[in-house]
């Protein structure tokens, strides 16, 4: 399975092996037809691929090379390159006294936001596939946090959370839930919680819609059969809905991990009053290294950027591996 999928995008070998596979039934037949593209001269194929290749080179590869180049340079506070730094910038990042805090924050932030988002979205998606009057409007309403710019949403939450005038404190005070206002953004024990709430809020729409699509793809007859066999709603959900939702769950988790890991505006906006790196994740850490901290060092920040890329690649790699392994063992 994995062999044939890796071979097929490469036109030449598939064209050659086309005849050999011709007797294979439907699946291989499809592949053979696809193989005909290879009968066009490879250069022509390359021409067709060129726009995409040019984009990848220009948008992904070139900046990556520049980033790597910057990470190996010694920069003045003004941004002037003074010479080569070798691996010094990497060492400085790894030796940074706050790196441990930052990494811990990153893990808490990503795991908390993604886990809470997935659980809440599963429930909300279940609710939104049921038909009820006004469902269309509720679905629209769900999209709004997605459509709004992250900076605006974050700024809105800064106002909601405010110690002196924030509406959340106002409500809690008037309901006598609390005696004195809570400093949601300035109190160290609350800051991460407050940021996670916003992170979940903006991640919900996308995740819900992935799940709605996933739920829509579950065939009704399977459900009916289960009902006829006397399965309880909980059994149906646990044994049929969830397993069939696995592709949607996987997409939602991987994409959310990447989005949330890379999320800059929420943490930057909600955390801007807090000195140091107490609540920063690796992304805002990278930014502060370059422009806000006493280091003010573009090279060090670029090195941190390289670590970021590696980190997310590793996380995604591990996740895909787990999913793959599960799929293979379940068959």
């Amino acid at each position, binding site marked *: 399975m994995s062999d044939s999928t890796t071979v097929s995008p490469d036109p030449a070998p598939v064209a050659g092996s086309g005849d050999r596979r011709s007797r294979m039934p439907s699946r291989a037949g499809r592949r053979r037809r696809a193989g005909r593209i290879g009968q066009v001269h490879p250069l022509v194929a390359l021409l067709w691929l060129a726009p995409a290749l*040019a984009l990848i080179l220009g948008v992904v590869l070139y900046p990556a090379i520049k980033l790597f180049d910057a990470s190996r340079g010694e920069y003045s*506070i003004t941004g002037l390159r003074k010479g080569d730094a070798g691996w010094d910038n990497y060492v400085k990042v790894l030796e940074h006294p706050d790196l441990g805090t930052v990494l811990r924050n990153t893990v808490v932030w990503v795991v908390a936001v993604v886990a809470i988002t997935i659980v809440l979205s599963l429930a909300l998606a279940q609710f939104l596939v049921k038909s009820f009057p006004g469902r269309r409007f509720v679905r629209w309403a769900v999209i709004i946090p997605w459509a709004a710019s992250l900076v605006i949403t974050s700024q809105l939450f800064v106002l909601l959370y405010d110690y*002196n005038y924030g509406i959340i404190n106002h409500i809690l005070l008037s309901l006598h839930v609390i005696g004195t206002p809570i400093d949601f*953004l300035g109190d160290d024990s609350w800051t991460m919680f407050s940021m996670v709430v916003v992170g979940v809020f903006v991640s919900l729409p996308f995740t819900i819609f992935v799940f709605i699509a996933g739920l829509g793809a579950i065939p009704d007859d399977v459900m009916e059969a289960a009902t006829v066999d006397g399965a309880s709603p909980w059994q149906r959900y646990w044994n049929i809905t969830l397993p069939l939702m696995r592709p949607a769950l996987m997409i939602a988790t991987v994409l959310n991990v990447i989005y949330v890991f890379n999320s800059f505006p929420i943490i930057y906006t909600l955390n*801007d009053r807090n000195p140091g790196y107490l609540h920063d994740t690796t992304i805002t850490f990278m930014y502060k290294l370059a422009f*806000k901290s*006493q280091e003010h060092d573009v090279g060090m920040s670029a090195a941190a950027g390289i670590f970021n890329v590696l980190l997310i690649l590793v996380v995604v790699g591990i996740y895909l591996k787990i999913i793959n392994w599960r799929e293979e063992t379940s068959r």
Partner: protein
Amino acid sequence: MRSTKQSVVVAGLAIAGLALGACGGGTGAGTAPGGTAGGTAEEAKTIKLVAAEYSKDHTKAFWDAFAKTYHEKTGYTLEVQVVSWDNIDQQSSTMIQNNQAPDILNLNAYASYAKDGLLYDSDAVLPAVVKDDILDTFVKYGTYQGKFYGFPDLSSARAFFYNKTLFQQAGIAAPPKTWTELEADAKKITALGGGKVGYALPLGPEEAQGEFSMWLFNNGGDWKTDGNWVINSDKNVATLDFLKKLADEKVTQNNPARTNRADAFDLFKSGTAGMVIGFSPLAADLDKDKKVDYAVAPFPSNDGTESKTFGVTDYLMAFKKPGNEKAVKAFYNLYYTPDQVNTFIKAEGFLPVTKSGVAYFSNEKALQVYLNTLPNAKLTPTDDPTWDKVKLAVQQNLGGAMNGSPKATLDGLQRTAESGG
């Protein structure tokens, strides 16, 4: 086969299009500043200014009008790019990193740029009459290693703002003259209840160095004396101890370590805070809102001696680029004419940087309290490139003293400064 040929043509066109697009982007980015940096001795006809946005309403309007006058009077063209304060550090750093420095950059620091050898000094681009007109304080703080690089565009001086209504309610007759009085007054105002804040103390990352400068100058302290860093001097530790005491007594707003200046101003503007260190733009906002009955006074000193003002100036620095010298000189010549510089400063609500400007503004009653102190204002050591890093360290670390030890915090900053940032 025909279709293959067609596809080749289409693909070829697509690539050509992409390549053209890419080239377009490349040359576009290259020529923007390159128009000036082109030949070695060829004279630049167009120069670029990157200016900081002091206000949405006035900054761009002023520089656009200025560019027009500049073109009419000198024949050179001025490209203006206005950048918000939030972004300007990042933008200027990126420009220099990519070898695309503007000809003139408006920023709150210059010494690091001078140290990197990127700037023209006054001998090259500042007409002698202009240099003579600039206030001596600003020449002093704009001088790095004997040469004047940091040409001030405008200045501000901090003063003590108090809410007259709250003072009256708390039975306080006059603004405090000493810190003991200030502390007592803050207690009285806080005791009014209803969430009133005696003194709004912003030690958050936005401007911690500004707030602390005002306090430490008025306790006879300083950041640097005779060329040596004295951040953890006894006087400065005593100053920070006093601020921590105010916070611990809860006569400040909640969590001063995590309060930015803008938030402290909001507290004062809403009539919640009794006292705050402000400057002329805050006064302009208060006058517009007409919600708070306030007055401005000199900031009290610890022992009641004469008050010292913390002054701030931003800079218009000139980058060395082949052939741009004349155009840049023409720029400064025009900017420092009383018509231009004073119009700008007046519109933005700041203070003058020239002797002629002080005379020009002398009949403005509201500015009196600042103008009197301006020639003797103390600045942070902006003439030392190390300060550019120390400032950032202060912003990120000073607030930590509110939950920890002021002495340890200042010791840490002293070490940062001594090790060159």
